[in-house]
């Protein structure tokens, strides 16, 4: 959507497209984002390697989430885009099959939502990346509530984000490094909860 030059008239843009793409599929060369539904179907069917797998999946999600968070702390738009795409694919390969039916349903909701936010982060400007990160953080926090975590995680909160609406995030370090403001207000926030 963002790549389309909105200001150009529909017809003019369409005319350009004819000259540049000879067939309809020609302009579909974006990297294939993981389709949440398909991925889920596959992973649900695959009951072979359950056991310890899921904690590993949750751990992989957390690791990619933390990398993304660090890119936002650095106010690095391009890096956050890449890491958003990485996180979307990690979320897509989460195997929830060893959880109870209720948990699976909830994880499915969480993952679907989280994937969408991660995908948006992979194609947005800084301000939008941070908006999506806020909801993504809630998704990941809710995921951890189900999966648990081996590593100790800090839930941190900055009351000033979005005109004092506030925003929470997760971190492996107790020290505050604010992903919503970056170096504009690097240390704004406090630990509001320790998980595990």
């Amino acid at each position, binding site marked *: *959507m963002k790549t389309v030059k909105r200001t150009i008239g*529909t017809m003019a843009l369409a005319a350009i497209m004819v000259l540049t793409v000879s067939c309809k599929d020609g*302009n579909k060369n974006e990297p294939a984002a993981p389709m949440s539904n398909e991925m889920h179907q596959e992973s649900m069917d695959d009951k072979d390697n359950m056991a310890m797998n899921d904690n590993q999946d949750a751990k992989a999600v957390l690791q990619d989430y933390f990398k993304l968070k660090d890119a936002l702390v650095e106010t690095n738009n391009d890096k956050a885009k890449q890491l958003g795409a990485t996180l979307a694919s990690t979320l897509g390969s989460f195997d929830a099959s060893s959880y109870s039916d209720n948990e699976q349903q909830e994880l499915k909701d969480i993952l679907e939502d989280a994937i969408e936010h991660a995908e948006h982060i992979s194609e947005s400007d800084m301000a939008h990346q941070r908006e999506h990160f806020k909801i993504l953080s809630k998704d990941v926090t809710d995921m951890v509530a189900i999966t648990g975590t081996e590593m100790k995680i800090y839930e941190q909160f900055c009351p000033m984000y979005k005109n004092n609406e506030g925003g929470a995030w997760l971190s492996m370090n107790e020290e505050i490094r604010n992903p919503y403001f970056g170096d504009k207000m690097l240390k704004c926030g406090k630990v509001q909860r320790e998980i595990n």
Partner: protein
Amino acid sequence: MALIVIQFFPITLNESDTVPQSDFMVENQVPATIKNRLQVSCYDCHSNNTDYPWYSKIQPAAWYLEDHIQEGKDELNFNEWAEYSDRRKNSKLRSIISQIEEDKMPLDSYTLIHKDAILSDEDKRVIIDYMTALKDSLE
């Protein structure tokens, strides 16, 4: 020559006669004025039924529209509202609010031709208030 040839390429029209039970307007009590605004300004690309303009008959505009509508529906399909989990409804409502607040939606390329889809400041305020209340009721 190419322009003539492509007129014969088929496209899939985004049209539907019925409004499904899962529609946003069915699940929620939407005031008539807002209902109408959403229908005119949003539903062409964010539902399974597009009120096609004249130029949609002509290639390559038809392809351009087809892609656009597909993209719009992937992002948000009002017809499938009831099928979204509460979590996703929440996310969708958040995005609806911020897209309208920031004048990102409806797209300029759309309102260029559909003047009636332009949201006035009053329209925006009313829709944002409604969506915010709906979002709060989900939390």
